């Protein structure tokens, strides 16, 4: 419609004439845009059309999603703990199948599977689902794979592929450190943190696998390929290679880890396989050299998606193998706690190193009688002897002198009762009771008798093996509480090294180095002196300091008349052993817990010894199995080793 028809009057009232020019400008822009579009369409459809059309008629550009191989997890010396291996899968594309019956029969015999079951698995999909490959085998052994591949030409619609699959080199070795991987869960997919994941992606679900997911994951690639009717790749159009994940270097020492795990096997301690945990730290920097939780599991069984029966078995089983006892298991520290009470006593001036206490085997307080584990009593003991022989009566009295809140202050100083902050899974905080804590928790007033229990690490006190190791590391290194460190460094796929966190001090214990030295001398006596409770951790040529502990699960009276074998398993005591070596310049802290294992010296001592022996590369001497005795029974002492043997000890 020409402008004149509109009428001048209307223009004056409405749109001014300068706008009309601008509207024409916009119209020109729009028309030019469309000209570009039409030219481009002409180019794509008419000029290149035939070629592209052929490609489409061969129907058949497929994108292959190239999963990035997950990065390796290696120990501190670069030895593989977890890596990635190829897994061969077989798929069927229903739309491209000919002669269903024959194909399934052939596949059945090639894969040693029932043809009917395979047919059922693929079903008879209709519509678009006919073009979706169905996986019928996901991790074929080499032999079957060769058989299938050599028959592919006769089996249109069947194709194989290779995908990376997590492989834990040592099976269950360090399972609780490494964690496991699995398909990303629906709930995780909805989180923003996982925005760039797609359903079916593999993701770390626990432990190091989960904690360092961003390093390990890598970046998926893709390949656009033209396939022929049988699904064979005809031509690769373009490809973006997957970027493998980076390597995570842990502070773990694989050999120590293995030694610590094998220590739980029947041939080391005798009897059945034991439950429990071991934590091995370097007291100079907090490096976690080994971390064990038993029973354990094989993370390889999760790698290709775990079936619900196995998962149920793992989670519902009474031994709870998935739980990481070293971090999340809370146990009364028992007599291992005495080292902290002793430190508190010295620091507070509540006791002099030479003060002596007479232990008749019992301690009367109010109307109750508290027993020493040694029924006959220890006689007259000073602090040194009381720690070495683990005299309960001595510590009952010391505990009463200090009071619960002073004991708690020093325990907290050793970082007990708080999470250590290790970069690994869920951690329990433990409990260090105080008067205020009891009021808060139970609404009840603290009883003096409870202080007596607390002074030997019973009662409300709860500790994780990791916490105890951190605390003993502080004794060993002269007072620094180190945050346990699991990550040494990360190495990107491009070789760029990113160092892990520097050793981090969580604070200093409120105890002077002189007093710590007194404690350390007593702890050495535990292992090396006649009457010490920890002789089983002795190894030739190395000065070892340690403390045994026996944590009661139920009250003493209920079971004390029974021999150990007669006590129902779940009521048996937990055995602790916390040790460090060499005394003159400690390099290693080992804390072992044998759950329901009985006495600390006999149940956990051999575990500590196995680890220390491995660390100092001394061969384990044969030792006669000692008969189970009452609580914390001292072991028959080995005679001191000759000096030349000690000189041969090679330090790691």
């Amino acid at each position, binding site marked *: *419609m020409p*402008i004149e028809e*509109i009428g001048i009057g*209307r223009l004056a*009232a*409405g*749109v*001014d004439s*300068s*706008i*009309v020019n*601008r*509207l024409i*400008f*916009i*119209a020109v*822009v*729009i*028309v030019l*845009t*469309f000209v*570009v*579009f*039409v030219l*481009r*369409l*002409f180019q*794509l*459809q*008419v000029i*290149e*059309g*035939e*070629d*592209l*059309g052929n*490609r*489409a*008629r061969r*129907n058949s*550009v497929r*994108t292959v*999603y190239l999963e990035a191989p997950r990065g390796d997890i290696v120990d501190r010396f670069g030895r593989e703990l977890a890596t990635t291996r190829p897994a061969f899968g077989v798929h069927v594309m229903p739309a491209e199948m000919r002669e269903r019956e024959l194909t399934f029969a052939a596949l059945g015999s090639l894969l040693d599977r029932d043809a009917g079951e395979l047919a059922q698995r693929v079903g008879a999909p*209709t*519509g*678009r689902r006919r*073009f979706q490959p169905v996986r019928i085998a996901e991790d074929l052994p080499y032999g079957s794979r060769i058989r299938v591949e050599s028959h592919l030409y006769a089996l249109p619609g069947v194709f194989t592929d290779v995908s990376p699959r997590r492989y834990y080199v040592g099976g269950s070795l360090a399972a609780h450190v490494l964690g496991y991987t699995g398909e990303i869960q629906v709930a995780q997919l*909805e989180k*923003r943190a996982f*925005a*760039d994941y797609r359903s079916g992606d593999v993701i770390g679900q626990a432990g190091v696998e989960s904690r360092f997911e961003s390093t390990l994951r890598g970046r*998926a*690639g*893709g390949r*656009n390929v033209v396939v022929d009717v049988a699904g064979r790749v005809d031509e690769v*159009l*373009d490809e*973006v290679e997957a970027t493998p994940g980076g390597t995570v270097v842990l502070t773990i020492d694989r050999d120590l880890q293995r030694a610590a795990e094998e220590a739980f096997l029947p041939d080391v301690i005798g009897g059945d396989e034991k439950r429990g945990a071991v934590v091995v730290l370097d007291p100079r920097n907090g490096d976690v050299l080994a971390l064990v939780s038993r029973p354990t599991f094989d993370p390889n069984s999760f790698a290709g998606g775990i079936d619900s029966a196995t998962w149920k078995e793992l989670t519902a089983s009474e031994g709870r193998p998935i739980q990481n006892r070293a971090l999340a298991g809370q146990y009364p520290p028992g007599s291992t706690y005495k080292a902290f009470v002793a430190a508190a006593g010295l620091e507070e001036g509540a006791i002099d190193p030479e003060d002596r206490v007479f232990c008749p085997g019992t301690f009367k307080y109010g109307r109750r009688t508290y027993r020493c584990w040694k029924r006959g009593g220890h006689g007259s003991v000073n602090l040194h002897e009381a720690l070495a022989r683990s005299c309960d009566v001595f510590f009952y009295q010391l505990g009463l002198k200090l009071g619960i809140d002073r004991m708690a202050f020093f325990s907290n100083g050793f970082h007990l009762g708080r999470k250590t902050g290790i970069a690994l899974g869920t951690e329990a905080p433990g409990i260090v009771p105080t008067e205020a804590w009891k009021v808060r928790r139970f609404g009840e007033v603290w009883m003096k008798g409870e202080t007596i229990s607390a002074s030997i690490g019973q009662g409300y006190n709860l500790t994780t093996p990791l916490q105890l190791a951190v605390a003993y590391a502080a004794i060993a290194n002269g007072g620094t509480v180190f945050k346990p460190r699991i990550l040494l460094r990360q190495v990107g796929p491009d070789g760029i090294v990113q160092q892990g966190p520097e050793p981090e001090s969580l604070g200093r214990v409120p105890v002077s180095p002189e007093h710590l030295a007194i404690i350390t001398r007593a702890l050495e006596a535990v292992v090396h002196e006649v009457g010490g409770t920890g002789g089983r951790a002795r190894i030739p040529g190395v000065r070892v300091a340690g403390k045994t502990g026996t944590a009661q699960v139920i009250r003493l009276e209920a079971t004390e008349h029974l021999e150990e074998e007669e006590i129902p398993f779940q009521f048996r005591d937990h055995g602790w052993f916390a040790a460090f070596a060499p005394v003159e310049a400690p390099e290693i802290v080992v804390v072992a817990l044998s759950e329901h294992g009985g006495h600390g010296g006999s149940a956990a001592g051999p575990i500590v010894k196995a680890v220390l022996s491995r660390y100092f590369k001394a061969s384990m001497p044969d030792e006669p199995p000692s008969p189970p005795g009452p609580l914390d029974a001292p072991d028959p002492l080995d005679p001191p080793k000759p000096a030349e043997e000690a000189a041969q000890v090679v330090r790691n």
Partner: protein
Amino acid sequence: MFGIDRRLLQNFDWMLLLLVVAIVGVGIINLASATHVDGALTGEVRRQLVSLGIGGIAMLLVLAIDYRHYERFATPALFVCIALLVTTLVFAPVTRGSQSWLFGGRLQSSELAKLGLVIALARYFHRNPPGEIRRLRELARPGLIAVVPVGLIVMQRDMGVALLTLLIASTYLALTRISWRSWIGVAVVGVATLITLWVFVLQPYQQRRILDVIDPGRDPLSSGYQAIQSRIAIGSGGLLGTGYRAGTQTQLRFLPTQHTDFAFSVLAEEWGFVGSCAVLSLYLTLMLWGLRVARNSKDGFGAMLAVGLVGTIFWPLVLNIGMVLGLAPVIGVPLPLFSYGGSALVTSLVGLALLMNVSMRRYVF
């Protein structure tokens, strides 16, 4: 106000309606092919038809009221839109990395915001004729009107829609008389600022994050794959197309999001060069007709409204067709009136009803 004036019916813009019906119709026929499974009417088609019904009713309501009344409500309407965007930001769950859906996914608040913004800007430029704007600083106030909703959409991490909204608002710049030199100055300063920020301020991980947000498809599996598959689909259409429901690319679902963002590829494969050009010319006619409505409108508000509404069709079309033809990066912007998506269809129809409203009241004083 609601009375049906005989003159309104006489002056009704049947041409505009015809164009809209044609485009939506082809869109639904195309959708049926893109989603069809064994000949049955799919849920997508049914939902799209329901949306069309809702859109039709909304159109009637919009048409019944003289558009000049909308001017009075422009400011409150903009505030309602902003409030909706804020509500979405606060309450709506995050889906696929961006949060923009409200009321259980039924309403995309940013869609509504585009219309609200156009009405508000039309009101502003009616009162401050763009033909008299010669200096950049005079754009400060309308700029503010646009920046608030765009900023909120950015916060929803919906970068495609944010860009789109900004482009729609920028349509009005074509009407101003700011000299080319000023624009070059703006461009130089802007680019320099961005480069400085990028090089000196942002950490590499922040740069990566920004790239990921701007272009989530840096992953070759989404953008590279989509681009290749789309090109193959379009190319295989040839001159005359493979025929309805006969496109191998489409029917074999090689095309990703083929009923939403890549709907045009389906059309191009099945109807060929001729079909594609036909649909493109429907759009071209629609937009030129919209400009004609602007020119013929009886007041400045109507003209400004019409220009803005043409912008709401033009920009998503440019981004979508550009993407489908491999001329623009893969940004998930649907083709207006054509792609599957209820919220977008209803708002597009409401926008066109506004355009018809301006058109049919061009002689009413």
